[in-house]
């Protein structure tokens, strides 16, 4: 029984990270029907900048917001330089290559400047684990699933209750009509990429005390976050968070009652099966384009 609780808790932590990363993809996709494939690297950028600022003597309480802000600027630049010029409609794929390339460039740059050694970002909540029904977890780890749920609520409120959020939703549904109604589509795209990158940086900073900070730390998290977004259906934030948690828990149970090798085989296998059964994602709706 303790093992089941342990795997569930561990799964919720890693699943929460997948969910937060996937929410970034959701924000970008909602606005421009394109994503930043270097989104995983914004996790790395946020945590690397936090550590670099800490080394420079900037207190974390100041350094973390600065790192998130800098990552938002990075997202903004990605949209302006790598996505907008290459995104000319549903058949455009150039932005995929350009965002992947920028991610690889960023990883190489960080390796050269920050170093290849994994680093640790301290957290006072990673000192001693607490026990829940006999299973152990660090208090900091509990922040991850809590943050995923809080961010979901925040996004929900933003899209429903603010003018900016409504404008972004309008663009995601009818970009041409939204443009005709005076909504600045390009501005919304910039804002969505900046917000997604800020969210990615936040996820990275949240993850940094649990995993280590290195140039490649965002690679797998980015990939699995994207996977979660696809399986859930790119345009359903609640579905994304639920799928993120479910995928994290599934991985831990496979690992716990099977072995590590099975984790990827079964985990990805289940995901492919789900995609075959639900081509628009578990929570996605079929998009109808009238011509």
């Amino acid at each position, binding site marked *: 029984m303790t093992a089941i609780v*342990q795997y569930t808790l561990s799964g919720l932590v*890693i699943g929460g990270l997948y969910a937060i990363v996937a929410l970034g993809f959701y924000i970008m996709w909602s606005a421009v029907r394109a994503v930043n494939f270097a989104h995983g690297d914004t996790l790395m950028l946020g945590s690397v900048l936090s550590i670099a600022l800490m080394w420079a003597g900037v207190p974390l309480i100041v350094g973390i917001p600065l790192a998130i802000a800098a990552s938002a600027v990075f997202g903004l630049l990605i949209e302006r330089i790598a996505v907008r010029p290459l995104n000319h409609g549903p058949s455009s794929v150039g932005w995929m290559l350009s965002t992947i390339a920028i991610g690889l460039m960023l990883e190489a740059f960080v390796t050269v400047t920050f170093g290849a050694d*994994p680093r640790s970002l301290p957290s006072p909540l990673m000192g001693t684990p607490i026990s829940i029904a006999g299973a152990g977890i660090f208090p900091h780890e509990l922040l991850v699933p809590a943050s995923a749920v809080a961010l979901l609520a925040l996004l929900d409120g933003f899209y429903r209750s603010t003018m900016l959020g409504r404008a972004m939703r309008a663009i995601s549904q009818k970009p041409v009509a939204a443009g005709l109604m005076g909504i600045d589509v390009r501005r919304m795209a910039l804002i969505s990429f900046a917000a997604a990158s800020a969210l990615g940086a936040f996820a990275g900073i949240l993850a940094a005390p*649990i995993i280590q900070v290195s140039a490649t730390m965002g690679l797998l998290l980015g990939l699995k976050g994207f996977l979660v977004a696809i399986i859930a259906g790119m345009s359903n934030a609640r579905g994304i968070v639920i799928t993120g948690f479910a995928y994290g828990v599934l991985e831990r149970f496979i*690992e*716990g009652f099977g072995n590590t090798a099975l984790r990827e085989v079964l985990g990805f296998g289940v995901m492919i099966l789900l995609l075959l059964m639900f081509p628009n994602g578990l929570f996605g709706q079929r998009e109808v384009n009238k011509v």
Partner: protein
Amino acid sequence: MRFQSIHALLGSAGLALALGAMPAFANKPCIGASLPITGPTAWAADSIRMGAEVAIAEINAKGGVLGQRLSFVAYDDAGQPPRGVDNARRIAESDGCIAMFGGWHSGVALAVVEPVHDARIPYIAVISAGTRITENDRKPNYMFRVSMFDRWQALALVRKSKEVTKTGNIGVLYEDTGWGQGAVPDLKASASAEGAKVVGYEVFKWDDRDMTAQLIRLRDAGVDTIILYSRDLEANQILRSMQRINYTARIVSAWGNTGTLGELAGPLANGMIVLQTFTWMGNLQPRQKQVLDSIMSRYKLKSPEDIKHGSGAANAYDAVYILAEAIRTAGAYDRTRVRDAMYKVSHQGIVQRYAPAFTPERHNAILPENYVWTAWHNGRILPIAQTPYGK
């Protein structure tokens, strides 16, 4: 006229055959290296460079080898076997180096066995310990090692685990790589030979962040001593996971985590015992101290701990001298002759006395009696005798 043509043709063919059969004496006085210059084990590549470059500088200051100055050319493989293969071909064919060194990853070293033998270039592993690197059934065998040898390492780890276990139940936790997977047969053979009771073998992948599942299984099997094959990154996660489930077991580790674990885990790593071939910490002999001073001065290091893979630096240092001696014995920058001369080299190194460095049956220069036990204590990895765990 016809005869003249036939003679001319035969003459040309003979010349071509003669040229083709001529051995390539024109190898250059460079030592190529395929190292993980980028990636999570880049610190190991730095250590290898330190040892190799200081040795080369010393040799060149005394006139080089056979009147030529040695040089060191390193290429990045990022720990990826295909890149190691590319590097090996470049070093052998394009650069024409006399020999090649290999870095951290056993997987990369295993991948280059083929191109190394195609090019007939002597290869010296200075960190990677995988058994099959030198035990590769090639004749003649161009793969040499001045480093830990996993078969011997496995035996030492099993013996140490038997010594420290209280319940008699030993577990093995290893990474899912060429190095980790390759160690399992050696561990099983050693455990069988030593009568050690290994009750669980658990595996993890690089970059895994949570090892609670594997550790719960070992804990439930009554394991109180874990033999570990991991990098620093995953070793830290293992320690965190043990803390998470309140599991305390003694860890007897292979030498994959001698770099940044102290910084990552701090006191959590206290008591982890690690086998190495050399340590720069503690009391050094005069020659060792002189080399340490050279490394620290050349690379502006503040402390010996800044040599993140101390064994790798020392092994590389000795390997350069062994190779230089082999070139002198061969009398030419000729790879085949240098390979053959490797068996004739005797040398007093900083790790041990090599007498001889290699034999046709033993391509592993550093002998197990010269391995040293170290332990992590308060963020530093020290000779075990200088820690509370050596008593």
